[in-house]
């Protein structure tokens, strides 16, 4: 059996390199424990990099969908309030006509009609925080409803007063899932304005529907004006309900995207976050390894024949 020689310099170099290795290992684990991340560079993540980045992008996408859908929720919420008002205006108009026709007394009917017209047209021409017409259907800076008074309505066909575009706003609430949230002024206003137009036409000459009404007038109100007011009321109720459904669907979508985001963030965390129990154990081991390397070096440094030789031969 042969015993290898051990060269002094090589041995100390070797011990030094072992200390450095232990130091590097300790450094890596310390960084992991301190940052909570597996690695700060992509090399440290290795073959999971693509999955990590894909999951991170998916989480960001879900977050963006949730945020944008939330904006749409606010918009539909606002529309809900306005559509409800429109619907109650239609109801008011219907009630007023029914009362006037039933009692044969038109007192206050046209005032109510004027009032309904003004409120309704102001809603149809409502603008958002950017000054764009909410019910403009893509044509955000064109007034969607142009009649300015009840008497205007009698001058033209109702549809000509609606200048809104036809593009209903929609939002992406998920990959490839688009939800239409936009409502067009012409969709919700035509029936109501037709009813008002019919009423204004019935009030001919102007002011003739005031006070007690003739049977011709009440018949006209019951047979021609009331049905269109009722229709307006029904349609607006439907529109409000549809908008309400959109609202709750959007709410659900926000929740869905939020849970998707949580799920993806879990994937991200699984890859890039360090398992603390494991890291703490590794830290312990790395510390022990470094200590062992240092102790061995210290011990071996003391071992030398030099210590056993007399300093002088005569002594």
């Amino acid at each position, binding site marked *: 059996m042969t015993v290898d*020689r*051990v*060269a*002094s*310099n*090589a041995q100390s*170099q*070797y011990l030094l*390199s072992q200390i450095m290795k232990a130091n590097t290992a300790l450094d890596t684990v310390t960084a992991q424990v301190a940052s909570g*991340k597996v690695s700060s*560079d*992509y*090399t*440290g*993540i*290795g*073959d999971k*990099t*693509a*999955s*990590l*980045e*894909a999951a*991170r*992008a998916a989480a*960001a*996408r879900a*977050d*963006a*969908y949730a*945020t*944008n859908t939330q*904006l749409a929720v606010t*918009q539909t919420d606002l529309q809900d309030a306005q559509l409800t008002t429109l619907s109650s205006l239609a109801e008011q108009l219907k009630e007023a006509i029914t009362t006037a026709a039933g009692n044969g007394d038109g007192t206050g009917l046209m005032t109510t009609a004027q009032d309904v017209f003004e409120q309704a047209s102001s809603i149809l021409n409502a603008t*958002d*925080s*950017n000054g*764009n*017409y909410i019910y403009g259907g*893509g*044509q*955000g*800076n*064109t007034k969607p409803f142009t009649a300015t008074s009840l008497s205007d309505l009698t001058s033209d066909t109702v549809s000509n007063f609606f*200048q809104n*575009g*036809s*593009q209903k706003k*929609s*939002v*992406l609430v998920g*990959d*490839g899932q688009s939800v239409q949230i936009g409502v067009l002024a012409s969709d919700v206003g035509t029936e109501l304005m037709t009813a008002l137009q019919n009423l204004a036409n019935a009030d001919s000459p102007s002011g003739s529907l005031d006070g007690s009404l003739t049977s011709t007038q009440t018949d006209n109100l019951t047979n021609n004006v009331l049905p269109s007011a009722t229709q307006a009321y029904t349609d607006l109720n439907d529109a409000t309900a549809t908008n309400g459904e959109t609202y709750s669907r959007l709410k659900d979508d926000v929740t869905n995207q939020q849970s998707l985001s949580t799920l993806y963030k879990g994937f*991200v965390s699984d890859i*890039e976050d360090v398992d603390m129990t494991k890291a703490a154990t590794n830290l312990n081991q790395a510390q022990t390894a470094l200590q062992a390397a240092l102790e061995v070096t210290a011990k071996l440094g003391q071992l*030398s*024949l*030099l210590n056993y*030789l007399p300093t002088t*031969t005569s002594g």
Partner: protein
Amino acid sequence: MSLNGIMSSALSALQTNTAALRVVSNNVANVNTTGYARRVVNLETLSAGGQLAGVDVSDIQRVVDQYLNQVSLSASASSANYDAQSSVFDQINALLGSVGDGTALTSQLSNVFSALGQAALSPTASSSQTSALNAFQNLAASISSLSNSLSNLQKQTDTQMATAVGSANTLIKQIYDLNAQIKTQTVAGDADTALADQRDLALQNLSQLMDVRTAQQADGSTTVMTEDGISLVGDTYAQLSYTAGGANGTFQPITLQSVNPQNGQTIGTAQALDPHLSGGKIKGLIDMRDGTLADLQNELGSFAQGVAQSFNAQHNANSAYPPPTTLDGRDTGLLASDALNFSGKTTIAVTDSSGNLVSKIAVDFGTGTLSVNGGSATSFAATVGGFVNGLNTALGSNGTATFADGQLSIAATGSNGLVVQDDATTPASRGGAGFSQFFGLNDLFQTTTPSILSTGLSASDSSGLAAGGKIDLLLKDASGNLAKQASVTITAGMTVGDVVSALNTAMGGTETFTLNSDGSITTSPSSSYANYQLQVTGDTTQRGATGMSFTELFGIGANQTGQLASGFSVSSAIVASPSRLAFAQADFSSSGAIVGSDDSSGLTALQSLETSQQTFAKVGALGRQVTSLGTYAAGLYQDVATRGTTVSSNKTAADDRLTEAQTRQSSVSGVSIDEELSNMIIYQQAYSAGARMLNVVDQLYTTLLQIQ
């Protein structure tokens, strides 16, 4: 036997042991000297006429093991190779930022779509447009700055390599000179010369730069050659030469030539060294420069191309509100005399500042006619210039259309705006790109070289290149082997097909150029050169006054894709006025404005690019794939990580191998203090014993002289 005989033997013991102690002393003194091999003293009996007459030093031997030395040299070359690669990777990692810090391309891309989503409900609000523009700019800046950093790193690596080549030359010359001196001393009988230690050190240093093999000669000299046998030091020595800095990302090989030591003149022809290297720092740097860094730049370029093509295609199909008054196209490299080669139909409309239609020009490229506001069809000449003239006439007082230096510009009069939209059923197309897209009239992203490589040119079209322009090509593999180096000089009147044939002829079958029907050129190496890459080392051709060279126009050459990323930016017109972001889509059927101020249908189409699939050609380590932009970017990071992991594990293995080789080598050649100390005791005791013998002889003489 005489007393004098005893005295002389004892004296030889004193002298010999003093010499031995001197060796021990040198060994101890050099315990930490790099490259020092311990010496051992071999003793022999001294004889005079066949009679023992004391002791002598037969020789002082330098303890080395040639095999272990060679193993150590090769391990050192391999370790230096990965060491160089690993330090470049440290810099790449620093460029990419840390994981999850939000600077990654994938995150920047997510930010773009997130900003688009937030703009969906109020597409014309300036806050929406500014934040979308910021997101686009950040993405573009990330791409271009990463590309430029990679390119700088590539140049830096190249400079480091040039320095390493210089050091290698010095070491080779040094080894040759030491060889000469050692030979002289060996003849004089001095086999343990300290020059051998210096030579070993020089060899060790050389092996860190390039892998070498050595052979010990009887005369004491050492011949040095590359791993595959190219001589570096022998009767003559070799010198390497390298000029740092490449053109177009293409770098020349290192050349090697023998030098006559007598007069310093070079002998024979220079040969490329690159293919003969398999280790050492130089090889590591070449691999990073021509491999990893070049690949990453090209992968980034391919991503940039995907982003530019997909976003530009959609952005050109959209319209901004209010419609922009001028549309300035990209440099298409086309000449006014080029055939139009468009098919399908498109509509070019002038609107007022509120998007209401002023004039509508319907262009039918199939019949070569255009009609204004539904009027009668007027035909135009089937050239680019002919069409532009026709368009200009059709615009009349409403605007102008001009074509110069490859760029189409359309301007509306006054505050009027312009809308261009391809027909939904038979869209205008040249090489697969729509009318506005091909001319880049409404591009979102701009690149310094064309991102659309389907030029729509056909073989019979004039090449438009002035005679005398020259294209220099190089077919090279990753190890630096050259398959073919060739040039093509343009002669007068060449068609595109002629140039392609000339390229094929010049490459002599090593690489095939094919002009496809969409006007793109595919290049493919022949089967025997499957892993070779075509590089364009120079191109002085130019299409007319467009400034566009033939290879730029068709994106020929392994480094062209990488160029797309370096100048990647958001169109300067959009940066100057964010309202040019086209988030609406023209609706010619609308009774009111044809472009709505609050229309976000174009924006929704841009949003869908997040998940839509794009086709990416094979580039670097990323194969041909059909995938989303985000997935491709993630793949790019995966490639960096995989390469980084491979290098770091190779480095660990090579370092361990080096440590092991050096430990084994030093267990033979290294100085052991304990061993030297025990030798010291042995020689010291022998010296003392010899001295005692002299004392005894002295006493014997005294005794003898006292006999009276």
